[in-house]
């Protein structure tokens, strides 16, 4: 069994860099995307086990991406964790409605994020 694949999607390169580094250190195979369209394309190509999805992005926001992913039967097993700056419960609810499995509010601690990822997939 190979490494578990994670797709991290965020429009801010710095945080993307940070997340990529941490996850790689944990032993995941990390792919990145900078916007919604990009994310769908990469997901199609690499078939990740888990997607870290930022909500606020140019060209298709996180909710839209998540909704589109969930429409596809071949990606039913893919876990989705939403990352957002919005902390309101309403946002969280909306995320879960479109099919996200988990929700992480920025700013988050690396340990929290890793724990949530580990609970879903083993590296």
């Amino acid at each position, binding site marked *: 069994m190979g490494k578990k694949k994670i797709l991290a999607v965020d429009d801010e390169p*710095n945080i993307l*860099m*940070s997340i990529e580094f941490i996850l790689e250190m944990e032993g995941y195979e990390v792919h990145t995307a900078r916007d919604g369209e990009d994310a769908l394309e990469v997901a199609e190509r690499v078939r990740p086990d888990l997607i870290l999805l930022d909500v606020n992005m140019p060209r298709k926001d996180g909710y839209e991406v998540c909704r589109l992913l969930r429409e596809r039967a071949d990606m039913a097993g893919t876990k989705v964790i939403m990352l957002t700056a919005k*902390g309101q419960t309403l946002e969280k609810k909306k995320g879960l409605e479109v099919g996200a499995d988990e929700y992480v509010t920025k*700013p988050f601690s690396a340990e929290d994020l890793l724990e949530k990822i580990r609970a879903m997939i083993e590296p």
Partner: protein
Amino acid sequence: MTADQEARPPRRKKSLRHRLIVSLTGLAVLPLIVAMAALFFVVRDDVGGIHGSQLAQEAGQFADRLRGELQRYHQTAAALAALPEVRGYLSGSAPFPKELLSSARQSIPMITGIDLVPAGRPAGQGSSTPLVSGKNLEYRLAVTDPNGKPLGVLVISYALEGLQQLFAPSQKGKPGGAVLFTDGGQRLAGDPGIPLPPLAESETGWVTFGSGGESYLAGVTAVRAPGGTVPRDWFLAVVQPASQAFGHLYSVSRQVAFFVILFVILVAALAWWMADQYMRPILEIRRGAEIISRINLDHRIKVDAGDEIEELAIEFNLMAENLARAYGELEGRVREATRTLQEERNRLATVLRTMVDGVVVANEAEETILMNPRARIILGRGYTSGIGSALSRIFPGERLGFHLKRLRRGWDPGREAAEEVVFPLRDGKLLKGSLSVVPGTAGEQAGFLLVFRDLSTPTEEGARFEETLREMPQLLRGPVATSRSLVETLQRHREMSAEKQQAFLTALAEEMDRLSGRVTAMEEAARTARESRWPAIPSNPRELLDEAVVSVAGLAVEIEESGDPIPPVLVEPFSWVASMECVLEWLGQRGAGGLPIGANLRVEDGTVVTTFRVKCPFAGDPAELETLELSPEGEEPLPLGETVRKNRGELWTRSCGDSFEVRLALMQAGAVSEGRRADGLIEGEPEFYNFDLFLPRPVFEREELLNANLADLDYVVVDTETTGLQLSQGDKVISISGIRIRRGRVQNAGIFNTLVNPGRLIPPESVEIHHIEDYMVTGAPSMSEVYPQFVEYVGDAVLVAHNAAFDKKCLDMAAAEAGLPQIDNPILDTLFLSYALHQEIEGHSLEAIAARMGVTIEGRHTSLGDARATAHIFLDLLTLLPARGVRTLAEAKAFCDRHLLLRWQTSRF
């Protein structure tokens, strides 16, 4: 006065005039009638007595004649009985003496038969009383021999008809005459039509009796029948119908009665006239008293009867004078109280006007009766709309109902009750305030007070700051999250390559930059919010300039008058005056050096520019001006530039040739948008409405108009001035005015008044009356333009006019010209009403009535002046109507009609 006006005098049950007429007539006529009646009866008795005695005498004469006749028969019979032939026949010794008997029979024509019946044969008995058989009277005489032995009976039959002839001359009218009858009521002789009188007590006498509805007089005498045993066997009566006996008396009496009736009528007429003489001063007093007590206390009763009634009038006038004095004092006190009230009201008005909260007062029926300017602005109501409309049309109805219900439920007289309310309006405004009960005089619930504030319109700067604040977490969260992540990674993975570490640190520095940039932006927003503009107040720029010039000591400032009107500006006055002082002082120090400073005000493009000019080249640094510090006592120092900007103003300098100018511009008050106005600029007074409106206003359907109480109706009093009085011959309206009366008050606010272009020349003789000349009406609208406006103005109100027929004709002609339907509102005419109320008084012209009622006409023969006078007269007349039982429009119209009819009828005599 109000109590008097409402009191309704008891309805007159008796008329003094009628009583006077009846008593006077009675006094003159009754004794006459009694005397005549007595005389009549006395004369009638006398006439009766005379007639009766005559009849009795006549009866006596007839009776004597009858007795004589009967005596003759008796003697004849006795002579026959004594004859020896008769005795012989009866004793059987001689034959029947036929010749003897027949000769005896022929000697008396009335004898119809003589017979001799010997004793022992039937009917041979002698009898003392004659027997009446058929038309005959049978007389039997016993025949005896000389020794007294009865031999038989001599029977002689007389024809009763024969007796009749004895009374023949007694003709006493139909059915009168002589009659002979027995006491058994058997008629022996006489006309069968003659009624039989009752039997007289005495032998001879007269009686009156009635029979078959007629009354009769009769003279009666008793007669002894031939051979009778009692003297009253038969009665002889002479009967005469009373009508014949009294005929002459009656005809004379009829003539007398006719003259008596004529006399009564004459006396009654005289009594009427006398009653009128007595009544006139009394009525004068009554009418005067009515006017004094109800309309004009200064009216005086004029009676020159010279008697006690005049004294009464004088005393009454004295009473009125005292009353007027007392009333005057009362009025003074009321005026004082009103003045105090007015002051309070003005204070309240000022408070309401300047309140930063909106205030709405409503009556118990939830109709708005007061709205302060702020409320109007917040609610977006025009100056006139809003008053009188339902609260639920202004505020969200259901929410309002909820709060009102709670308020009503929880309200307890004598206790304060308020309800905190929040009203979101349709236009997005959010109002927060408190709703409370306005107690009435009796402690009841009289209305509601709503004080509110608009939460949704913060200042521009405040809004921007608030928005910045709201967005800030969003803006900060990203960089913070990234930084945290980067730092954590660095901490967790200290073993990472130096190259990687460098990348991470660079990223971190980038994030820190973003973070600080966003914090700076927030700071900027906060500063802008803090430095927001000052609330502006509309002020007169010229006054502010004067203020500044006066405060700057030791400087010669010449204000140039431009002559143009300078509109008010929006400014915080104190800081603005301080700014101008600062500029002047600066110019004084740096520039002029003793030269006068020119100042002027100009309107430029929605702004008012104040220019200060010195006529010398400027030596200082113009940029210095911005930074000059204003430091009023007790406040933080503020640079001049900022002070000007806080006042929404601008400051700049200009050098041209040898002069230097400093200019300060401010926004005109009128140029500020409505939204800006809500910041603190409020114009106008709160409208105070008649607080009677605390009572819910009744709403009338048009068909109910006629039965509505007169006091509750809306009226429009109309008056027109025309080029002349011949409307049908081309005279036209040149001015028309309408005045509204509502709830018994003249509404000075809503007056309709316009000149009208008659489309023809105004004759000079009519100009003399109304002083409206041709040039004045040339620019005026035509009547066909005015008419629809007037119809709209009148609405459903009842029209009132003096001599309404004329004004109605004017309006109808205008309707025809404009091609519109005629105005069909009910019309009341003050002329008719005055006629009907005071028909005894002469003079119902507008002047005469106005003088009587104590109404002064300001501007007689201007349509507005006349309409106003008519309105006041109408209101005065209205107070008199309830006493005449007139309360509704229908009754008022009937009242006018009734009295006009009366007047028309009297005018025919």
